[in-house]
């Protein structure tokens, strides 16, 4: 990477039709690109596979949150009802898994939801207040009637001229260099 590249975010091009951007995405995927993205005004079914995206890692944090919540709920009810201030309620044991189950269950749900909610923030790298793409003059159009592919400079395959030509060979129009 040369010094000029460090100030460049990537190159972008636009497409006017869904099949065009779809097949272009497949070619970028097959060329082995890792740091790139497709921007569309609406979800395109099958785009995940066309881009070669893996499954979201968020469910792992959901599971982690759920397990943590379950253990927290057990410890919470055991500590309060059976250890810190042992109390007989309705002739039930100080602690069993049955009577405090609503508490344990709710803790499981709560922390699983936290895992999901904050997990997507982490994996989406949010909050993020600005992005170099926002400076593109035609960027607003990808929420209307155009589709955009962006090849990012941090990808090891990135080389300004070659990437430009690559986008051109895919049929991309209005190829633009995005500066950081």
């Amino acid at each position, binding site marked *: 990477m040369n010094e000029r590249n460090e100030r460049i975010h990537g190159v972008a091009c636009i497409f006017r039709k869904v099949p065009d951007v779809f097949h272009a995405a497949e070619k970028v995927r097959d060329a082995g690109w890792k740091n790139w993205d497709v921007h569309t005004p609406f979800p395109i*079914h*099958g785009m995940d596979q066309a881009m070669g995206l893996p*499954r979201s890692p968020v*469910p792992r944090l959901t*599971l982690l949150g759920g397990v943590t919540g379950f253990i927290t709920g057990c410890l919470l009810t055991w500590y309060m009802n059976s250890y810190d201030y042992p109390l007989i309620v*309705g*002739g*039930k044991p100080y602690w069993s898994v*049955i*009577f405090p*189950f*609503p508490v344990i269950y709710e803790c499981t749900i709560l922390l699983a939801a936290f895992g999901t909610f904050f997990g997507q923030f982490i994996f989406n790298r949010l909050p993020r207040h600005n992005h170099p793409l926002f400076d593109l003059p035609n960027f607003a159009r990808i929420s209307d009637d155009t589709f955009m592919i962006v090849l990012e400079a941090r990808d090891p395959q990135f080389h300004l001229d070659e990437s430009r030509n690559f986008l051109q060979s895919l049929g991309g129009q209005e190829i633009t260099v995005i500066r950081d």
Partner: protein
Amino acid sequence: MSSSSPHALTAHWKKFLALGVAALAVVWVFAYIGVGHHENRQALSVLVGSLFWVSVLIGMLLLTMITRVFDAGWAPLVRRNWELLIEALPVVLLIGVVPLAFLPEFRHALWDWTDPAHVLAGGHTVGHDPILQAKSWFLNEPFFLVRIGLYVLVFGVLVTLLRRWSFAQDTDRTAGHTHRLHAVSAVGIPISAVALTMLAFDCLMALSYHWFSTMYGVWFFALSIRLALAVTVILTYKLSNGGWLDGLLNQAHRHVLGCLMLAFTVFWAYISFSQYFLIYTANIPEETFWYNIREIDAATGLKSEWWSVSMYLIFGFFFLPFLSLLFYRTKIIADRLLTVAWIILIGGIVDLWFNAIPRQVYDKSTPEGFVVTPFLTSSLLLDLAAIIGFGGIVFAIFLRGAAKHETIPVHDPRILESINYHE
């Protein structure tokens, strides 16, 4: 896909019929001899066997109507198999539950409350039971028989309507049938909900008529959908390996069925636990005895074999399928989903056993005045024979229907969406 050449599989319907008739003949003979010797366990096999399939088929009936009401895009491909199967629902009721209810010897043997001379735990008879007298506005024989007749009628009519217009669409290509089925389903869902709740009350809950649970109908619903989905997964697996779904059933269909299996596994656990939890918390003897006889050996005070059955339900019928289905790959890899479906199917049989078999039998030699029906007896084999017997009839009807009708709803407005369904 053409109607002129039915699939080779359908030729096997006679084998299923022969298997079904043979197994049911054996089970009914055992039940008849048992009842003659004042034994009801063999008659209970007929009830468990028929209720297993009633539950599967009610689940499929509901799934048919629910996917109609919501216009589910993935459903038509799978739904046609439900439509072919549910023809058997009134038949299973007519050769299982109906004779048990309408033949007095079987009725008296199975449902204690219908026999005034029956001696209850504690030594008094049903005829002198104040609890039954208070419940007699509902638990009286004429009304009971009318209700059993109504279940056959209600489910029979719904099954007929749902099938008729769906098959009519195959030949006359009219989209209006879809709207008509939409309306039938919207009306049919609440009617089925009431009917299946009452059916669960009459056939299962009334086996221990002192006991009551308002969640019982919902439990039966959850079990029905779980069993229906398990049978659907097993059947569609078979049909996509050399049947009419070959090359049509894809990963996304399995994912949907897997997600539904996960959802209803959780729902079943929620309902079953809530029922237990409320009774445990309230601690009222007329409710707790139902769980006590399923946990504790009254004579010794130790855990009985029914306790092991309860534990199997918690770990084998909830945690095992639940934790497996949490993983995306379990839901899309055909062999893994098939394994989970079998686990659910086996768990469903154990759950029916848990609900149907244990009851207090009068025995004055014990200090408590009763013994609990044991779990591990040779009659479990008779239960399995009954399940196989009714299953033979169900699949004979299914395959004969598949030979007569399209096995793919070729003119369903959403059939292309269903075939091309993706995640």
